[in-house]
């Protein structure tokens, strides 16, 4: 009978996430050969991207007043941050096609857990490890090549990476929230993810005024990568922002993520009142 009300032991959200993540890892490793090939492919393609930048330096010596070491730091930060968000946010990436279009989102709503947690648990993706390793390698090389690296880099590197990962995760969540309105033409939003990674690899000084504004106050790419990089390299900002800004600016990634979570909640509420 149902009189025993206190029957459910609570499993914390984190413990549940670990379970779901583990199940997805087991599924991904079911075919280890394929997995290893994909990861290597991911490593090589992203590394080729860096050689593109490197060859620019071979020709021009410096870009926007930055030498190769400094750009490598920027490149490494953006790619590592993005790979972390790709690893965590796969459920948001496939949300339109696999949840909204198929009606599977209803199934998620039937589970007594927050939808964001369930979608994080969709998959802990291992493939972006290729990009992660490659980015970390370039970041290390950049710090070694740079003429002067401040001691603050010790904590600024992980801080910038977490801020960046939060920002990119925010983009993925925002992109998923848009699927509540329409599942068509969302490729446009990839401008913010893949385009963001591309843009983040170059110094902010290279962009036009309005793009600089957007990349600082809209999508806070400069806050999570450019300014922290300046601070760790003790490289004064040509645009006049004080160096200390780069020590707090990664928080902008979390503000952006918070904003996108709010947008997500609005999206769920509208879905629940309109029907699929």
């Amino acid at each position, binding site marked *: *009978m149902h009189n025993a009300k206190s029957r459910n032991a609570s*499993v914390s959200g984190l*413990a549940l996430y670990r379970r779901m993540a583990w*199940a997805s890892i087991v599924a991904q490793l079911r075919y280890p050969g394929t997995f290893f090939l994909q990861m290597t492919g991911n490593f090589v393609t992203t590394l080729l991207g860096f050689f593109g930048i490197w060859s620019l330096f071979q020709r021009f010596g410096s870009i926007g007043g930055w030498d190769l070491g400094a750009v490598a730091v920027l490149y490494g930060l953006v790619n590592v941050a993005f790979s972390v968000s790709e690893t965590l946010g796969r459920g948001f990436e496939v949300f339109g096609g696999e949840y909204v279009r198929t009606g*599977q989102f209803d199934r998620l709503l039937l589970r*007594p857990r927050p939808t964001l947690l369930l979608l994080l648990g969709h998959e802990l993706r291992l493939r972006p490890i290729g990009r992660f390793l490659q980015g970390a390698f370039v970041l290390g090389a950049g710090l070694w090549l740079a003429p002067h690296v401040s001691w603050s880099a010790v904590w600024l590197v992980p801080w910038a990476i977490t801020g960046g990962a939060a920002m990119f995760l925010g983009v993925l969540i925002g992109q998923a929230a848009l699927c509540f309105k*329409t599942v068509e033409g969302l490729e446009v939003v990839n401008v913010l993810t893949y385009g963001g990674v591309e843009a983040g690899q170059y110094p902010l000084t290279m962009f036009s005024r309005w793009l600089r504004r957007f990349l600082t106050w809209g999508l806070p790419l400069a806050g999570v990568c450019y300014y922290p990089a300046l601070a760790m390299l003790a490289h004064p900002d040509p645009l006049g922002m004080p160096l200390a800004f780069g020590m707090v600016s990664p928080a902008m990634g979390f503000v952006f993520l918070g904003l996108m979570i709010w947008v997500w909640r609005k999206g769920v509420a509208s879905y629940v009142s309109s029907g699929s």
Partner: protein
Amino acid sequence: MRIASPAIEVENLRKIYRVREGGSWRGRTREIVALDGISFAVPRGQIAGFIGPNGAGKSTAIKILSGILRPSSGLVRVGDLIPWENRIAHVARIGVVFGQRTQLWWDLSVGEGLALLRDIYGVEPDRFARNRARLADALDLHAIMDQSVRQLSLGQRMRAEIAAALIHDPEVLILDEPTIGLDAPSKLAVRAFVRDLRREQGTTVLLTTHDMHDIEALAERVIVIGHGRILADSPFEALRATTLSERRLEVDFIGTPPVFDLPPGAKETERDGRSVTITFDPRQIPAPALVAHLGALAGLDDLRIGRPAIEEIITRFYADHAS
């Protein structure tokens, strides 16, 4: 706790869908009234059947009761919770099976899926072990526990789905067309299981179906819905007495059917080529008597007796109640 309160209470529930016509951003919106003020209550431990033609609003009502859709107006209480205001607490106490879509994970085995649900619902390990064993016995799941959901037949999958919906001991089980597409043995297994569940666990069950046999086998209570309104809400026997008591007799002749008289309680409803359809009420004229009456006709080839399909009954019922 109010022991006497019903498991499900619905009051004047309305749902209006707004659909955009034309492009997805611009264009006019059209309103579809899916539920036009329905009210009913299901006492604890009852099996209630929800029937009605396609588009009647059954799934809409089920979605609202499940907490995945917000009504335009009206009140719903399941236990003492309002589903859409307290989704997480509400869904922890109900189990839902949608016949048309899976609740399990395609890439996991049935056993792995159940284990994941244990953590999602926070079921204690020993309770989980007991429930899993009980459900595996009752639904005959032992042989498919290690098989991935992708590989299951529809009948096997439906049994696994039902286990998945019950692993956390819900107080209310909601089934939306649970027997759709199943073969006869699987249908029988599902019906037997639901009957036992209600008897042994006292679970309240609300189901929608197109299969009149499901209703006949399971429901003590039938709620007929059409165009978003409740047309009838009565014990199954009462509905059967008024609408379902009707039988049909199809009579084939070797040549063109003759014109013939029928005893009271029977009437000719259709004549098509070599066959004639007769509708009769077995309380007025028992089938053997009717067959004996027709046996005297010349050129008789074959006789088939049956019940009208649910769609036909509902359509008739609806026509009777529309005005």
